[in-house]
C-alpha cells in the first residue's frame, strides 16, 4: 500500500499509531503521584520528540546510507529556523510557508556546503562540515546580528506586522495553521490522569509521518541502493564507471532539507530562534541520536532522538529534594546515603547518565536500540523478522 512493501507499511502504521497516541502513551503515571516526574506527555517535549525525530531521520539518510559523517548538520537546522521566523515576521503567521522557506533555504545552503565538503571523504569531510557549521554559528552569534538578532536571537514582537496576517495594533503574532493556534490544547481528565492533546504536536507529528514515509521511499528506491553502494565500496563504484558525487550531493542536500524542515517546525511550535541551535554540540547531538537508535535503520534515529530529549528534559529536572521524597521511606542514614549515591546522575548530572547509556549501547548493542528490540523479540521466540524494516533485515553497525 502507498507503494510500500507489507513490512514497511506495517512499520509506517506502527509509527502512525504511536505518534497519534503519544499523549496517552507518554503519560502513564497519574497526576500527583511520585512517578508523575517521569511523565513525558506534555506538549513541548512531545513536539521536541517528533522534531528531533525528523532531524535524525534526515541525518540518517546521509550517514546511514552513504556513510558520510557530517559533523555540521545543526547549521542547516539553524538556517531553516532563521528562514522560517523571518517568513513569520514579514509575510505570514501560517506555519506552512514558514516551513517551506526553512526547507528551501536549508537546501540551498546544503548545496553550497555539500558541493565543497564532498570533495573529501572520511574524517576530512567531517571536519569541513564542522568548520562550516561553526562558521555559521559565529556569523549568527555576532557578525550577522542585524539579521539574526545575535545572542538574543529572534522572536515575534508586537512591532512585527506580517503582510498576510491582520494583527491588531500591538498584538503579538502567534504561529497558526489556517487560523488554528499552534498552542491550543484540549485537556482530558480521566480519573487521576490528565492528558493534553496539543494542536502543535499533531501538526508536527503529521509532518513527521510524511517525512518518515519519504525516508522509507528513499531507502527502498534505486537511488537508495546507489547510496548504499557508496557506503560499501566507493572505489569499486568508481571503477565500474559510476560517479558517486551526484548521489552523495543529492543525499547531502536531502538531509539538509530534512534539517531545515525540523528547524522550520521548531519555529512553528515555539516562535524563537537563537544561534546556539547551530553550535557544534547540537551537531554532535544528532550523531548521538542516530547511533543510539541504530544507524541505517528507519525507526532507530527517531527512538534515539526520543531517548536523548527525554533524558535532557526529564532527568535534568530531578533535584535532591525530589530524591529525598522518593526515598523518605528508608531510615534517615540510609536515605541520605542512597540520595548521595544517585545525586551525581540527576539534575546537572544528566550528561553523565546519558554518557553511560551511550557507552552501554555502543558496547553491548552496536546496532543501537533497534538491535536491542530485535534481541528481545528473538528472545520471546517470535520468528518474526526485524521490525526496523531495513531491506537487509538486519542493522549495519555504526562506522
Amino acid at each position: 500500500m502507498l507503494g510500500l512493501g507489507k513490512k514497511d507499511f506495517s512499520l509506517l502504521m506502527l509509527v502512525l499509531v504511536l505518534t497519534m497516541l503519544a499523549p496517552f502513551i507518554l503519560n502513564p503515571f497519574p497526576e500527583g503521584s511520585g512517578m508523575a516526574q517521569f511523565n513525558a506527555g506534555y506538549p513541548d517535549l512531545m513536539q521536541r520528540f517528533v522534531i528531533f525525530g525528523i532531524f535524525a531521520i534526515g541525518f540518517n539518510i546521509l550517514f546511514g546510507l552513504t556513510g558520510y559523517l557530517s559533523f555540521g548538520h545543526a547549521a542547516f537546522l539553524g538556517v531553516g529556523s532563521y528562514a522560517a521566523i523571518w517568513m513569520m515576521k514579514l509575510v505570514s503567521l501560517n506555519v506552512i510557508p514558514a516551513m517551506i522557506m526553512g526547507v528551501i533555504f536549508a537546501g540551498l545552503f546544503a548545496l553550497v556546503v555539500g558541493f565543497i565538503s564532498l570533495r573529501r571523504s572520511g574524517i576530512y569531510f567531517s571536519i569541513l562540515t564542522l568548520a562550516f557549521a561553526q562558521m555559521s554559528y559565529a556569523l549568527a552569534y555576532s557578525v550577522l546580528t542585524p539579521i539574526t538578532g545575535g545572542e538574543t536571537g529572534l522572536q515575534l514582537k508586537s512591532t512585527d506586522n506580517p503582510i498576510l496576517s491582520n494583527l491588531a495594533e500591538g498584538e503579538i503574532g502567534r504561529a497558526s495553521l489556517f487560523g488554528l493556534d499552534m498552542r491550543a490544547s484540549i485537556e482530558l481528565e480521566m480519573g487521576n490522569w490528565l492528558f493534553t492533546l496539543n494542536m502543535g504536536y499533531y501538526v508536527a507529528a503529521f509532518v513527521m509521518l510524511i517525512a518518515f514515509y519519504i525516508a522509507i521511499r528513499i531507502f527502498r528506491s534505486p537511488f537508495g541502493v546507489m547510496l548504499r553502494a557508496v557506503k560499501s565500496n566507493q572505489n569499486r563504484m568508481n571503477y565500474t564507471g559510476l560517479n558517486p558525487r551526484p548521489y552523495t550531493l543529492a543525499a547531502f542536500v536531502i538531509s539538509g532539507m530534512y534539517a531545515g524542515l525540523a528547524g522550520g517546525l521548531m519555529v512553528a511550535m515555539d516562535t524563537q530562534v537563537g544561534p546556539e541551535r547551530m553550535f557544534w554540540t547540537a551537531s554532535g547531538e544528532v550523531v548521538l541520536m542516530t547511533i543510539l537508535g541504530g544507524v541505517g535503520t528507519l525507526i532507530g534515529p527517531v527512538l534515539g532522538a526520543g531517548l536523548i530529549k527525554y533524558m535532557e528534559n526529564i532527568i535534568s529536572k530531578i533535584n535532591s529534594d525530589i530524591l529525598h521524597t522518593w526515598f523518605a521511606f528508608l531510615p534517615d542514614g540510609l536515605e541520605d546515603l542512597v540520595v548521595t549515591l544517585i545525586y551525581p546522575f540527576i539534575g546537572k548530572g544528566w550528561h553523565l547518565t546519558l554518557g553511560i547509556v551511550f557507552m552501554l549501547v555502543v558496547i553491548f548493542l552496536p546496532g543501537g536500540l533497534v538491535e536491542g528490540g530485535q534481541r528481545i523479540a528473538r528472545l520471546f521466540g517470535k520468528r518474526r523478522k526485524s521490525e526496523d524494516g531495513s531491506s537487509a533485515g538486519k542493522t549495519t553497525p555504526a562506522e
Partner: protein
Amino acid sequence: MSKSKFTRRGLLKTGALGGAGLAMPTIFTGAVWADAHSGFTNAPQGDTVTLGFNVPQTGPYADEGADELRAYELAVEHLNGGGDGGMIPTFSSQTLDGTGILGKRVEYVTGDTQTKSDAARASARSMIEKDGAVMITGGSSSGVAVAVQALCQEAGIIFMAGLTHSNDTTGKDRKANGFRHFFNSYMSGAALAPVLANAYGTDRKAYHLTADYNWGYTTEEAITASTEAMGWETVNAVKTPLTQTDFSSYIAPVLQSGADVLVLNHYGGNMVNSLTNAVQFGLRDAQANGKNFEIVVPLYSRLMARGAGANVKGIFGSTNWHWSLTDAGSQAFVRSFGTKYGFPPSQAAHTCYVQTLLYADAVNRAGSFNPCAVAEALEGFEFDGLGNGPTLYRAEDHQCFKDVLVVKGKENPENEFDLLEIVEITPVDQVTYAPDHPQFGGAEASLGTCNPGA
C-alpha cells in the same frame, strides 16, 4: 477550554469522544495553556503554589547558576517560615509572614538552561506545561533572559529576571509580564563615569575590548556614551569573539594606539582571561601620554574577581550588590545564607533571592496569583530593606531603580571572599534615565499588554 470530567465507567465513551475531538479541529479554537476556572494560566489549586527556578546548571555560567539556586532554596525556606527569615523582617512591605504565598505553601521545580535560549525555553515550557509553575525566574545571561521573558509573555506567566545586565532585557525587548531587579549597562556607565573622572581625570583616551555579542554591544555603548560626556575620547573599540581564551593579540596593539585607559567589556571567563593577559603585558605599570595606564571592568562579580586573582587589585568596576554592605537587609541575608551554606552570597544570589521575595509580596498585596494583578502590584512599587536602599520598580519598563555600587579590587584581601571594596555608592538619581532613552529601544519600545494566558 473543554475540560471534561469522565468517570471510569464512561471510558469507552471517552475514547469515542476523544476520537471525535481529534477529527474535528474546530474544537481546538480558543483553548490555550490556560485554566479557564480562574482565568489565568496555571492558577494554583489546593494548598500549594509552584514556582519555577530556571538556572544554568551546566555551561559557562554554572557557578552563577549554582549560587542562584542556593538563593532560591533559601528564599523558599524563608517564605514557608523556615530558617531565620532572612530579609523578610527587614523588607519594608510587611505582608510576608512565613505562611507561604497567600497562605499557600511554596513548592518549586528546577531546570537547567545550559545558558542556551533553546534549552532554557524547553525547560521553562516544561515547568509551565507539566509542573504548573505560576512564575518562572532565573537566568544568567541576557540572551536567555530575553528568550524566556518572551515565552512567559506568550504563556501568561510572570517572569522575574535573574542575572541579566544587557539594556535590552528592559529596553527594546521589554515585556509586560517580565520584571528585572538587576541593574543594567547604562547604569554601570552612568555610575562609573564620575568615579573614573575623579580618579583618572577628564582628558583620557579609552580603548575598548568588547565581547562580540549583545551584552557587549550595549555595555560598550553605555560606557562610551557616559565617558565621552565627561570629556574622554574613545580611540578604538575592538570586538573579541566570545569563545576567545587568549587575548594577547588583542592587547598587544593597545599601547601603540595612543590610548591610556583599557575598558574590558567582558564577563565571566572572558574577563578573567583578558584581564590576566593585560596585566601580564605590563599595562598596569605602563605609562601613556604622560599618565599611568589604567584598566576598567564595567561589570564586576565576586566570582570573576576570584578567577582573576591578584590581577583585580585596584581595578574599578560596578556591581549590583556586595555582601560587605552594612545595611540591615544585606546583613540579614548574608547571615542566613552563610549559616546555611558556609560562605557569603554573590550578587547573582542576592538578586534572585530578592526577586522571589518581591514576587511573593506582590501576590500577597494583589490578593491574587493572576499575572496581571501581580504586575499591577509591582509597577511603581517602592520598597526598602532588601540591601539596595530605597528602590523603585518603574512602571514604564519594569526595571528597578536603585543605588549602584562602584567597586574596586581590594589591595589586601583578608580572605578568598573579600576581594572587592566599595568605592562609592552612586545615588539612584544619577543612574536614572527616561523610559524612551535611545539605548533602550527609543520611543518604539513598549511593554505591550499584560497577558494572563486565558
